[in-house]
Structure formats: C-alpha cells, structure tokens
C-alpha cells in the first residue's frame, strides 16, 4: 500500500477550500475491536454548506467515518476511537459534550429509510418534541417547513394523520430527511440515502440535496460514483480505512492526484 500518511494532511491544506471548515478530523483512528483499526489516521476538513461525498469500495470505512461525526458508533459495544473530531472547532468526543445536543446539530439519514410506526406528522415532529418543543402550533409550523424543504409537503399535506409506513419507499426516505430537518441541524449526514431506491426516487432525493446545500452542510456516503459526481462539491476517496484523496469533485473525477483514485474511478477495481 502506498504510504500516504505523511502527505495527506498537507494535501488537504493545499486544496483550495474556499469555504469555512465545519468538520475536522485530526489523526482519527477507529477500532471495532481492539488492535484492529477500521479507520487509520484520518485527517479531513469538510467545508461548510457544501456537499461532500465519501466514495470507496465496500468496507473501506466511509460509513464508519460518517458515524463518527454524530457518535452513532458509540452504540457499538467494544468500539472506541483515538484522535479527535472537531465540529465548529469543538471536539465532540469531549466528556462535556451532550450526545443529544450533538445529534441535534448533526442530523443523520440512514441507508434504509426508517420511519417510526406513527403518523407522518408524529414522525416529523418527533425530533422537536424530544427536544422540548411542545406547542402544537409551533410543531405544526416546524413540520410544514421541514416537509416543504424535503419536497414532500405537496404529496402528504392532506394525510398527515396516516401511518408513515403507508408511504412509498422514496417518500419514506424523504420523510426521514424531513424528520432530520425538523431538528434544524447544521450538518446532515447521509449514509447511502438512495441505495435502496428506484432511479426516479433517487433523482428526487438528489434534487432535494441540491436544494438543501444552500443552507446545510451535507456529507453523503455513496456507492454510486455518478451520484457523487452529480451532487457533490467535494469528494473523498477512501480505501481500507485510509483517506486516499480529498479534493473538489471536479478534480477527483477529472484529474486525480493518486493513481489509486484514478484506477477506482475509471473502474479498474472496486
């Protein structure tokens, strides 16, 4: 394997990241089991209000990295990290950080849509409710604006009391996006949000992402390189737990610096 450890960080610094950095990882190692790194010294700066895509072959650690940003990995018994993750300059692995506040600020959309077995309204209002919003009218406003942002309002506004499970797959995924938006996060993590959807639903999700990036920082994990090329401003290519290359999407897809990246993008492996 190419030894990149020394160069990676400089690479990132060289990149002309005009926007402000919102997420920064410093020498991040992640272990599912002791002594076995799933992430190897990842150094990365994700710019604010841009779409950043993580690409790479299966098992390369892109989802693991994503889940470090809202500490979802904490649920995995026996796992631990070394190094730090800064969000808006603050290490989220500090003892003082409240998980609930962090996850409020860093929303997440999962690979498989996971609407709760409740009404559509209840689903979207779930986040605000657990975070202490109780007034019905306030919740109504939040639900409406979240659904509008997720481009679902037109389709469901006349059946808010119906079970969310009766929606189609694509609608369910957009509902999950709306649910995340209702918390007014600043960052949205998307873990292969369209991998289980048909092309039309995927297109809709991509349109939604296009809209959302005006206001939110979006980090998206995807298997689909075309998707990464279509929706993202920046792309990170990962392999076996290492960050191989991170640059503007254009650069990665047209003029990658690393041979490995080029091989992957041109489809020689992966």
């Amino acid at each position, binding site marked *: 394997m190419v030894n990149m450890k020394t160069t990676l960080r400089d690479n990132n610094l060289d990149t002309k990241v005009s926007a402000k950095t919102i997420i920064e990882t410093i020498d991040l190692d992640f272990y599912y089991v002791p002594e076995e790194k799933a992430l190897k010294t990842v150094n990365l700066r994700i710019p604010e209000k841009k779409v950043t895509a993580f690409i790479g072959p299966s098992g390369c650690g892109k989802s693991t990295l994503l889940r470090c940003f*809202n500490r*979802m990995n904490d*649920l995995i*018994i026996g796992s631990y990290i070394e190094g730090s993750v800064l969000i808006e300059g603050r290490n989220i692995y500090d003892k003082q950080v409240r*998980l*609930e*506040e*962090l*996850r*409020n600020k860093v*929303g*997440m959309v*999962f690979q*498989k*849509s*996971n*609407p*709760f*077995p409740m009404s559509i309204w209840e689903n979207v209002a*779930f*986040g605000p409710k*657990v*975070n202490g919003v109780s007034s019905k009218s306030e919740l109504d406003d939040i639900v409406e604006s979240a659904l509008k942002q997720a481009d679902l309002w037109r389709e469901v506004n006349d059946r808010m009391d119906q*079970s*969310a*499970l009766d929606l*189609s*797959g694509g609608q*369910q995924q957009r509902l*999950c996006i709306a*649910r*995340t938006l209702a*918390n007014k996060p600043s960052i949205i993590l998307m873990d292969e949000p369209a991998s*289980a959807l048909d092309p039309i639903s995927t297109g809709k999700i991509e349109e939604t992402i296009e809209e959302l990036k005006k206001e939110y920082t979006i980090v998206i994990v995807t298997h689909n390189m075309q998707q990464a090329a279509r929706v993202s401003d920046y792309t990170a290519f990962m392999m076996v737990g290492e960050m191989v290359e991170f640059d503007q999407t254009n650069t990665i897809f047209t003029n990658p610096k690393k041979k490995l990246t080029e091989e992957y993008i041109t489809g020689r492996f992966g």
Partner: protein
Amino acid sequence: MKKMSYFKKKGDSYIIFTATGLILSLAMVVLIMTIILVKGLGFFWPSDLVQVKLQDGKAYLGEQWAESTKHEFDTDGNRITHEEIQFKIGNRDLYGLDFIWLSRNEIEKMEKPKNAFSFERLGYGNFYGFIKSLNIGDKQFNYLDEQSNNAVEAAHDKAVKNRHEIKELENDINKLNTPLVNLQREISLLQLKENKTPEEQNELEKLQKEEQAVTDKINPEYQKLSKKLESIYLENQNIFLNLLTADNREKKLLLADVVRIYRPNDFNVLEKSWIYVKKFYEFVADEPRESNTEGGVFPAIFGTVMMVLLMSIAVVPFGILAAIYLNEYAKQGAIIRMIRLSVNNLAGVPSIVYGIFGLGFFVYALGGTIDQLFFSSTLPEPTFGTGGILWASLTLALLTLPVVIVATEEGILAVPRANKEGALALGSTRWQMVRKIVLPNAMPGILTGLILAISRGAGEVAPLMITGVVKLAPSLPLDASFPFLHLDRKFMHLGFHIYDVGFQSPNVEAAKPMVYTTALLLIVIVVLLNILAIYIRNRLRKKYKTSVF
C-alpha cells in the same frame, strides 16, 4: 432404485412422522375438551325420572346415571357377570344415600310416570316423588290434575318471594342495629379495662347514655320490622307439600326450601331446555349451596377473574421494567447472562415453593408487619397477617414474573434496530427512545407474556391453597361497603373449587358432574381472558407493523 432414493430425499416418511406428533397432540386436546364438554354440559339437563320396581317389592324413583358390568365370584368360585344400573334416587333425608346400584336381574319393572316430580331443595339434595296434597295456611288441597300444578307453582312462587323478603328484612334489621352494636363494642372495651382514669369513666357513662338514646330511637322501627319478619316466617312455615316417595313413604316439604320444581317425564324438549338454561344461569350467577355440591359458582368465578387481574396489574409493570433494564441499560456481560439464566430457571421452580414463599414472606412477614403498624386495634385477630386475595395475587405474580420478563425481552429484541438508531440520531435520550419507540413496539411481546402469565396463573391451585383461597368465602373481595376493594379478604377460586368439590366433598358422587362443569368454566374463562389479550395484541401489531418496501 432411483425412485427410492428420491422418496428418501423428499423425506415423506419423516413428514408423516412429524404430522403424527401434531395429530397426537390435537387428538388429546380434542379428547379432553369433548369429555369435559359432554360431562359438564350434560349436568344441567333435566333427565327423566324412572320408577323401578324390584322383585323383592322395593321401589325407587330416580334418574338413571350410569351402567356397568360387574364381575363377581359366587360361592362355588365361579365367575359371574351381571349388568348394573346406577340411579340417583335423591331423598337423602330418608335414604341416607343419593345413589344406588341395582342389578338388572333384580329389576322387575321400569317405567316413567308422568306425574313424578323432581324437587331441587336448598338442603339435602334433590327429592324425587309424587305430590299428595298442598297445604296453604290451614287449608289442604289434594293433588288431582294439571290444575293442581298451577296451584303448586303459585304457592311455590309465594313461598320464594317470602323467603327473599325475610332475607331483606333481616338485612334491614342488621343495618338498623349497626350503630348500636358499634356502641356496645366500645362500651365493653372500656368496661374490660382495669384502673380506668376519670376521663375514661366519664366517656363510659357518656357512651352508656348514648346507647340508651339509640336504643330508644330505633326500638319502634325494630319492633315493627321483627313483627313483620315473624309473620312472614310463620306464613312460610305453613306453605308446604305432602309428598309420597315411590315406596309410599310420606314427607312434608316446605315450599320455601325448594329452589325448583319440575316434572321431567311430562316436559317436552323446549320446556326441558328452558329448565336447562335456568339451571345454567343459576350455576354461573349464584352462590354455592350444600358445601359446594349444589348451586352456583359465582364467587369462585369472581375470585378467579379478580385474582388474575390483580396478578396482571402486579406482574406486568415489574416484568417490563426488569426486561427494559436487562436489554437497554445493563452492561451486557457475564453477570447479565447469569441473571437471564436465573430468570429462566425461576420459571421451572415448582409452584408450591412459591406458595410457601408467599406464606412466609407476604402473609407472615409483610402482612404481620402491616397488621402491627396499621391494624393493631384488632389484634390478635389478623387483618393482612393471614391469607388473602392480595397475597395470593402477589404470589402468583412472582410465579409468572419470569414468563413476562422473557416474553418482554423477546418483544424488545424484535424492535428494529433502525428505529432505535433513528430515534437516537434525532437527539432523543436513551429513555425517550425506550419510551417512544421501544415500549410501543414491544407491546405485542409484552402482551404475549401477559397471555402466558394469565394461562399459567389462572390454573394454579397449589400456591393459592396456602395464601388465601378458601372452600367457602362469606363475602366477595369487591362489594358496596367501604373501602369497596377488600384486598385482605379470603376468596374462592375455580381451580380450588374443582379440587374441593371433586375430592373433599361429603357427597362425591353427586358432585362429580359439577367438577366437569367447573373445569369447563375455568377453561372458558382462561380462553376469554386470552382472547381479550390476543385481540389487543393484534390491534397493536397492525399499528406497529414494520414497513417493508
């Protein structure tokens, strides 16, 4: 050869083998249910009365119950067999026994006289015989024909009405006396006290004065009521039938002591069905008579249902809490595995062990302490320090706790991980996630646990026998007198009723059908409670079905 091997591959013989297992279990269930249904439901059918004349001149009137072949050895050692018929001849006050076996060889004649009567009495079981005459007051009417039947019926109605009125009057008198009785108790308590202080002496005199005043106040009303009572009582003493048995013995029967009169031989199917319905209703809705061998089982039904409900109220929250902690909060490891194993093993502990624990811990330790703290005025008579419905329910709750924990854990494990992660990712705390996502989704599992607990709890008898079940409870654990729910009271239970009637009864033969009927009722109640829980579970399942797209 090739065909053979395919047959083997398909494993038809094994499929048949597995099917046999299912068929055997089903056959057992069907067999048990059929026996219980036939024997239990037949109990209420008014069977025909058969008059039997024997060769030696004896005569009996009764219901034909069973037949059997008896093998005996005669004096020469030869084996002889003869057919025997069992009759229920009733009239226990005359014959001593309700049942008799008669050999077919002895019987000269069997007939079904139309004017044979069956009397269900409050005491001494049934009476079978013929009516000679009816006495009302000092008038006597000889029994002649159909018209007389109506007269008998009217007189019976009157006597029963009087009987109810007597009961009501007695209640009224009791109520009237209650303040006086309470005063007298206080007075006697004070009088018993040695070395009275002046204040106590004053108090005593005051109470005695009050007693006099209350007596004066209620006396006119009391006199009125007791006079009325006496007159009705006397009237009822003079409404009676003169009966004749099959062997021409005479018997006087007060109509007030009769529950039901009917002529089965003269009744058609419709009339018999009506009696059947009435008897069935009596069985479900009335109190037992004659040491539980007659009458109804209502107190036992009530006690069973109430005990199961109390048990459910106690066991479900505990089971849920324990299961949530085990699954959501506890650090998974060797200790938790040990605890899980212990919980599973607890389900296998014999129920009598729980009963003894309930007696020692709940009744003596807990109940005894409660008595000393809150009911010391009535000691040494125990209030909670003796068996009662609360302690029995708690003992059963303990017994069924493992079942509920295990089922709830399964329900919790079945909650999709994606939903839990989704809730956490939205910034909910673990507790909010448990409350809003895990608990509602695990509800079907919890209800499964409840169903299993009900089935197990309703059928248990052994632990109840030492923690509060009695053969005959004077009052229900729930009634109109304050504080309405009497958790300290002893209660009746269908399971124990079966044991008591079937094996402890003075008249086992007569009580046998009652055992089947009570068993049937117990099964019906368990099934009904289960259906209720299953209905709720299915509704929840529909609501919380996980999406698949």
